[in-house]
């Protein structure tokens, strides 16, 4: 059989993912005047995970209206369609190379596309049971909260009748209420940490309003049942060591265990493209323009860091789109390889863009200091025009009446902001006005929390 001759198609901007991030990025890129945009979505319809989020609470910030997930998605996808942006549905990106060549798969075949710029907007996945190492049987009835949400809301299937939920992430909380409304008995939500990892409004509206117990500092220590789950053993954990106290364990009969134990940005394609990741966010390391370590590749939405609110995703995606368009304007229309040439795995990975010619390091790392679990962006580029920089960060634990401190490499305070409460369940933000632009001798910034 002869080798596959795939013509290399050229597009200015490829957006990978048609969820909230990809949709907002596509619209903004078009508003910026970019003519050829290609949005690739693996599902049969646009909207991503919003399609299964039939509860309300979306759009309060962005639209000033309380919308359901599908309604929020619909506002964007209708606009994308109306704007005539090319969307490839039912299409899976197999690979992205460091020189921005995408291999895509669909029922129409396999195509290769050379992109001038790429916006990564693939979203995230749920952490599975195996990642936690919960001992016990591996029977039916153990599934992630998001999968249960899809079964229930999109396929009309009940995942179970009596349910324990491990982890108090937002999807788990939403599903506790949803399953209760559909007649299931939610026995308890069990959370390893001494605080909920979901939004406070969800703890109130989804658990307290339905008298569903939230067991903090508890975990599931064993699953039972040969074929279908018959119950779980739970135990309190020591708040610091998180070791379960098996003496105080107890059995809860249930046929379903839902897991809402964290979301992991889906960066397999990014890794293949040579994009550097931040171990704390598990998303790409980016600068304030949302540029990754690979020239011309930008990231936004949950593939970059897990967001609490979709409104923030949309705004972030628009920033990524503006940066991608600026990148395309700044460089001549890229032609990474001749027509028909194929990228080979053995080819060297193109180097990261070197610093400016002045010898000054062009980027300033923003470090997660004491009390900070993760921060985005991880870098500030000094050679961009000074403007307000928005840091998104998660604290390492719950703080009350604390200060967020941004300091430089000499420990000098750059900015300080007082907060009543900071919790890992709610991503916090800090705006650094353009007036605080880093001077050329500062080697890094550090974000920390002081009580």
């Amino acid at each position, binding site marked *: 059989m002869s080798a596959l001759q795939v013509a290399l198609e050229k597009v200015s901007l490829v957006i990978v993912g048609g969820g909230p991030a990809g949709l907002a990025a596509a619209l903004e890129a078009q508003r910026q005047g970019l003519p050829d945009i290609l949005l690739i979505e*693996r599902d049969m319809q646009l909207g991503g995970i919003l399609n299964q989020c039939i509860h309300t609470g979306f759009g309060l910030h962005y639209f000033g209206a309380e919308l359901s997930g599908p309604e929020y998605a619909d506002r964007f996808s209708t606009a994308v369609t109306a704007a005539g942006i090319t969307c490839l549905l039912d299409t899976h990106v*197999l690979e992205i190379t460091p020189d921005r060549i995408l291999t895509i798969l669909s029922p129409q075949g396999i195509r290769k596309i050379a992109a001038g710029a790429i916006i990564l907007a693939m979203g995230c996945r749920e952490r*599975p049971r195996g990642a936690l190492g919960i001992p016990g049987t*591996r029977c039916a009835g153990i*599934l992630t909260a998001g999968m249960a949400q899809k079964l229930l809301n999109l396929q009309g299937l*009940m995942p*179970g009748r009596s349910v324990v939920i491990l982890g108090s992430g937002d999807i788990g909380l939403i599903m506790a209420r949803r399953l209760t409304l559909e007649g299931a008995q939610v026995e308890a939500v069990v959370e390893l940490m001494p605080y909920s990892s979901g939004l406070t409004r969800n703890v109130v509206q989804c658990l307290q309003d339905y008298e569903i117990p939230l067991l903090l500092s508890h975990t599931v220590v064993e*699953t039972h049942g040969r074929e279908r789950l018959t119950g779980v053993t739970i135990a309190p954990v020591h708040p610091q060591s998180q070791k379960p106290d098996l003496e105080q364990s107890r059995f809860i009969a249930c046929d379903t265990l839902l897991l809402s134990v964290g979301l992991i940005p889906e960066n*397999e394609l990014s890794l293949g493209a040579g994009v550097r990741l931040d171990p704390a966010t598990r998303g790409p390391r980016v600068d304030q323009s949302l540029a990754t370590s690979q020239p011309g590749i930008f990231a936004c939405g949950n593939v970059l860091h897990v967001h609490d609110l979709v409104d923030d995703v949309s705004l972030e995606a628009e920033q990524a789109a503006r940066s991608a368009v600026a990148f395309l304007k700044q460089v001549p229309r890229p032609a990474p390889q001749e027509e028909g040439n194929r990228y080979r795995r053995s080819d060297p990975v193109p180097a990261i863009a070197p610093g400016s010619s002045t010898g000054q390091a062009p980027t300033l790392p923003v470090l997660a200091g004491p009390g900070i679990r993760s921060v985005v962006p991880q870098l500030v580029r000094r050679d961009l025009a000074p403007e307000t920089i928005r840091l998104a960060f998660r604290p390492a634990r719950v703080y009350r009446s604390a200060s967020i401190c941004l300091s430089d490499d000499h420990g000098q305070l750059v900015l300080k902001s007082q907060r009543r409460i900071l919790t890992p369940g709610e991503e916090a933000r800090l705006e650094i006005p353009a007036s605080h632009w880093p001077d050329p001798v500062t080697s890094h910034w550090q974000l920390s929390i002081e009580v």
Partner: protein
Amino acid sequence: MFDVVIIGAGVIGCAIARELSRYQLSLVVLDQASDVCEGTSKANSGIVHAGYDAIPGTNKAHYNVRGNPLVYQWAQELAVPCKNNTSLVLAFSESDLPRIDALIARGQQNGVRGLSRISREEVQRREPQVNPAVAGALLAETGGIVSPYGLTIALAEHAAVNGVEFRLECQVLSLSHHPAGSPETSHFSIRTSQGLIQARAVVNAAGVFADSLHNLLSEDKLTITARRGEYYMLDKRIGAQFNATLFQLPTDKGKGILVTPTVEQTLILGPTSDTIPDKTDTRTTAAKLEEILATAVLTWPGLRKDSFITSFAGLRAHLAEGDFRIGRAPDVPGYYLAAGIESPGLTAAPAIAIDLAEQIAADFDLVLKQDFLVPPPPLPDFSLHLLADPDHLAQLAAEIARDPAMGRMVCRCEHVTEAQIRAAIHRPVGARTLDGIKRRTRANMGRCQGGFCTPRILEILAEELACDITELTKAGGQSQIVTGQLEVKA
């Protein structure tokens, strides 16, 4: 009346079935599970053992050494993922080096080729992740890895296209022998959950349950205990950092905790070894999972918990005598057994099957078929590392042109498309359950563990099997995935 009944559709039962299907005969394989490969064969280390470990003169040594090259040969013929990645047995102190030499001597006595002692530097050159405190190692050049469920299912498929019948969810309730004056009238009656089956010959390949079946027929009573082995599985990104299978020096309980890449590039750590009273108890335990970590870290100090994708456990059938029992049962003509098949049973399977098939063929004057069919072609492979090959890409493009569903990705982690899932259902001895799809396609086996693809797979299964999604199970019995339809409120 069947000519032969094989009880047990693990790798041994399926291998014997495939070997016997070369002859003109009627053959049925029974298993109480909902699929082939639902017992010991699905949850083990997947190692092609070289054969240095077994005690010389035992069946284990004999069948291991004969089976080793056959596994590679069979895997190639059946297009089963298999790799001659070599095995290393690591010694962590100078004082343990004589034990390495003793293993080499034992292996040579068993007839194993390609055994040598390598230096610390050579170990580090081959395996940069290994503990730098290593003192030296045994290198077994013929060691390898194979997909245990891939091999078992491929053997079942090949047997099925050659006329072997598979009856699943078929439990043997009782078994009796009716001796007669001549071999022509001697036969067995097998009462099962699906009715009475009669056959001229019975092969017992029932794994941990082989003793209770055997004891129904033979006066030479057997006792099999179940030994549970627990494992951790890690992400492919980690597995890619290892080449060889890494053993520590064996203990009296077995070959100890190993660290090995799998043919799918994941990494497994394990197994533990514990005798358990309940022969169906495949749960994992906190204590043993901790033991794996505590032991594996000696081999691999870089071990971190953040790339774990799952843990699992499998049972091994251990005979008190510590060896395989293979062949004719002396007191029951027409009854054959393959009992006590624990490690290195997977490696030994081809040689065991060839011997048993030859014995049965000789005893019953079986005649080889003229029209023995080749195995069905494997499913197309969308693995990323193959996509760099333009010929492979062209082949996939041709498949998509034939069937557009071949281009619709369902499992993003393991790159499994809709057409592959549909094909897995319609292959010989096709998938009927979510786990059946998993072991035939790898959908559900990757880093998201089915979080994304399961709802779509359920739809496809329901369509192809013409049933309701609420009837679908993970692995038969009462393992339904969902508990019902959403009630529509007035």
